[in-house]
């Protein structure tokens, strides 16, 4: 019986290509690489000013040349007359690839059991085939930091490019161990702990963090001295922060917590980045003085306090930037990462200015992640993450005409677009209802 079944399936499989050819209509457009010349556009380089009637040559996945009179030899020429070329946008905090449908637990992979799990690798759980990735990248967001959450040390975040069939193909070269700094804020409107309880809870958590840091330091020094220690993956990962191999990304939001966090990192010989920083504007000078870069956002968000001015979250990135803090902007989203340009635009409108806001989604995160030689601007030698748009891509009505990631020309299609194509003019329409 078994053998027969097997044979039968083998027969079916043999038939498959034939059947498929008969049933498949049309062709699937895949991302493709090659030599492309984006001709005659306004190039907003971010770092080197704006070039009019300029072109960008893409070759071997990189930006080969930026300028005028670039030879089209062997390149696929894309006429960009009247259009604008920008670097691809980087979202400095998302759960992209880790979540498919947020209410369906089986499709969410960003929060592992345990309070201390720095060894959990976000990159491992990134689903390269998530529907959310093509939905996101056609908006011009080409790169995203995908971040685990929950607990004191939830795991290790990873920067991904939004193209590729394996996590490694997507990996963009930056990881950071995430820490949720013990919060003295309420978790939401229904958190009714007393002020004392909140204080106690956060002190307890901070004590734990200190003990863990101490432990990881010992672990690291023993290990570097050549000691053969028992397998301890959590400490192993934390030790990488102490050794300087990985930075630590501290999620911290309330003003008092930011101050505590600044105090906590003082004297610790490691690289720190703050994320969230919702009340950064209250203590912007202190953050600037400490020289800690921030991944701020979401910007389209409510104020943290009822008494705050309504635009507190809109103005936060601008206020921090003015104080001298290096600011990158994040959405803290999954399926809505495509709104990154709008978060940045709100920051721009509410005090940050367009230029600074553009930096906050391009060169600033690239610098914070130590990848400014690869990302964040339209410059020869950098990885070809580029967008071509009808106008400033922050503008809501702007149409993104071309997207290149890692030198791949990205098809401008996704579920949303396919559904539009199918249903705009449905057939049959109202007939036989």
């Amino acid at each position: 019986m078994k053998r027969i079944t097997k044979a039968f399936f083998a027969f079916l499989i043999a038939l498959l290509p034939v059947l498929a050819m008969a049933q498949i209509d049309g062709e699937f457009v895949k991302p493709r690489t090659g030599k492309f010349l984006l001709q005659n556009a306004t190039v907003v380089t971010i770092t080197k000013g704006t070039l009019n009637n300029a072109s960008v040559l893409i070759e071997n996945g990189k930006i080969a040349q930026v300028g005028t009179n670039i030879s089209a030899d062997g390149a696929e020429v894309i006429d960009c007359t009247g259009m604008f070329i920008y670097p691809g946008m980087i979202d400095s905090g998302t759960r992209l690839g880790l979540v498919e449908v947020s209410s369906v637990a089986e499709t969410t992979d960003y929060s592992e059991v345990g309070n201390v799990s720095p060894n959990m690798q976000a990159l491992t759980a990134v689903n390269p085939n998530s529907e959310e990735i093509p939905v996101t990248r056609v908006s011009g967001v080409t790169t995203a930091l995908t971040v685990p959450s929950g607990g004191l040390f939830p795991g290790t975040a990873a920067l991904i490019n939004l193209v590729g069939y394996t996590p490694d193909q997507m990996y963009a070269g930056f990881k950071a161990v995430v820490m949720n700094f013990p919060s003295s804020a309420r978790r939401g409107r229904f958190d009714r702990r007393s002020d004392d309880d909140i204080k106690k809870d956060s002190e307890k958590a901070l004590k734990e963090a200190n003990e863990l840091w101490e432990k990881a330091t010992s672990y690291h020094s023993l290990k570097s001295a050549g000691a053969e220690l028992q397998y301890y993956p959590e400490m192993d990962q934390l030790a990488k922060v102490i050794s300087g191999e990985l930075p630590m990304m501290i999620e911290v939001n309330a003003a008092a917590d930011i101050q505590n966090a600044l105090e906590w990192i003082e004297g610790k010989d490691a690289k720190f980045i703050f994320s969230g920083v919702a009340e950064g504007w209250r203590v912007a000078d202190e953050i600037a003085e400490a020289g800690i870069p921030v991944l701020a956002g979401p910007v389209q968000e409510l104020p943290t306090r009822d008494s705050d001015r309504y635009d507190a979250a809109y103005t936060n990135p601008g206020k921090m930037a003015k104080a001298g803090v290096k600011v990158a902007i994040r959405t803290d989203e999954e399926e809505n990462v495509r709104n990154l340009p709008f978060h940045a635009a709100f920051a721009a409108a509410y005090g940050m200015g367009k230029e600074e806001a553009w930096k906050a989604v391009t060169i600033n995160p690239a610098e914070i992640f130590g990848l400014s030689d690869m990302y964040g601007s339209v410059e020869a030698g950098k990885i070809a993450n580029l967008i071509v748009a009808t106008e400033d891509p922050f503008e809501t009505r702007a149409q993104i005409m071309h997207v290149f990631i890692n030198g791949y020309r990205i098809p401008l299609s996704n579920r949303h677009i396919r559904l539009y194509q199918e249903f705009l003019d449905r057939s049959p329409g109202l007939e036989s209802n």
Partner: protein
Amino acid sequence: MKKFNYFLAVLLGLSITYASAQTKKGSVLIKNATVITVTNGTLENSDVLVQDGIIKQVGQNISAPSGIETIDATGKYLMPGIIDAHSHVALDVVNEATSPIVAEVRMRDVVNPFEVGIYRALAGGVTISHAMHGSANVVGGQNVTLKHRWGSEDPADIIMQDAPRTIKFALGENPTRVHGRGRGIQPRTRMGVEAILRNGFNEALQYKKAWEDYNSASSEKGNTMVAPEYDERLQTLVDILDGKIIIHCHSYRADEIYMLINVARDFGITKLVFQHTNEGFKVAPEIAEYTMGASVFADWWAYKFEVYYSTAFNAAILQKNGAITSINSDSAELIRHLYHEAAKTQRYGGLTDDEALAMITMNPAKQLGISDKVGSIEVGKQGDLVIFEGHPLSVYAIPQKTFVDGVKYFDIETDEDDQRLRVSPTEMVEPIYMTQEDHRCMQGVELNFSDISQTLFNTNY
């Protein structure tokens, strides 16, 4: 001492007359603005005069009658107050989640005029919101349409008293989860949802007949009829059948939308608006033909399974199929930038400025049954207006001043930061909320301790 009391009493006496006075109506002349009327095109360099809360003149070179404040809006845009057809702002209770039908509950009973969300909405140019019951029930409670008269103490003063009655319905995951899976009663499936609706309307018809029979018999001498049981739940369903109430139905999937259209057609109901309607684009011709349209998110999707097959082009497809389409918030955050949400119909579907702006003004006004009063800048309509710096559909636009009935309730220049109307006398430190509790369809429901698994699933909309 006595004298002191007397004076205080006099003062209080004055405040009594003030409190029982009608809601505030203002007069203002806004000059030299780019006036986006929504219904009659855009007028450059034009003026709008509001007197006693009503738009009296729209045109050029209007001079201010004496005593009326003039605001120079040169270089700025003036548009009608934004209307949010789906909100849970200013409600002390959102969900009476305990029964599949709770048509008898009235959100107007629990309006809270002190919620700072009202002011924050004004700061986003929103002058009217449709404060809805939640989506835990197949037939939820009766909603209330609010005018954002910030600073009012009497809930009645922020209720738009001349708006028609509306009621919340909900299909799909929320009611089936709360009742079927949560409590083991119908509905657990979309089949059950239809059955609850049809059963409810049929019972309502019987209820109506029972009262008609009783009323006609009670005049006859020697009759032995006694009054039937009073049931406001069924009476409200009767009112729906009689066309006195507009249904606003939380819905996502095309099949359930189509189901409700069929139920409505079977019972002769025409006052029907779909809310959320993420798969509305799949049945756009039906929605256009048989209903008052759909009120949708600009781009939300994938937060739960029934919105996984969504498209941000939904509003554009609905619009182009002739359905009345509005963009709503269902969120304390989104309500602050509906002008931006509306602009997304230009990115996703290339709608014109007027089409996009109608989605947050005239179209929601139609769906709430108030388009004769608000929703556009026309003489005779209520003076709900917003002045913008920058075109309202630009991502860089910033609302400057917001007027309701000609009274200015938001001014970016002069308003204090701290807008709280009430402060607790026992507050040690002001609470800081990191994950803001949005106003949501499932507000309250998911925090029920016995429903904690639902909290985990984080299904809020």
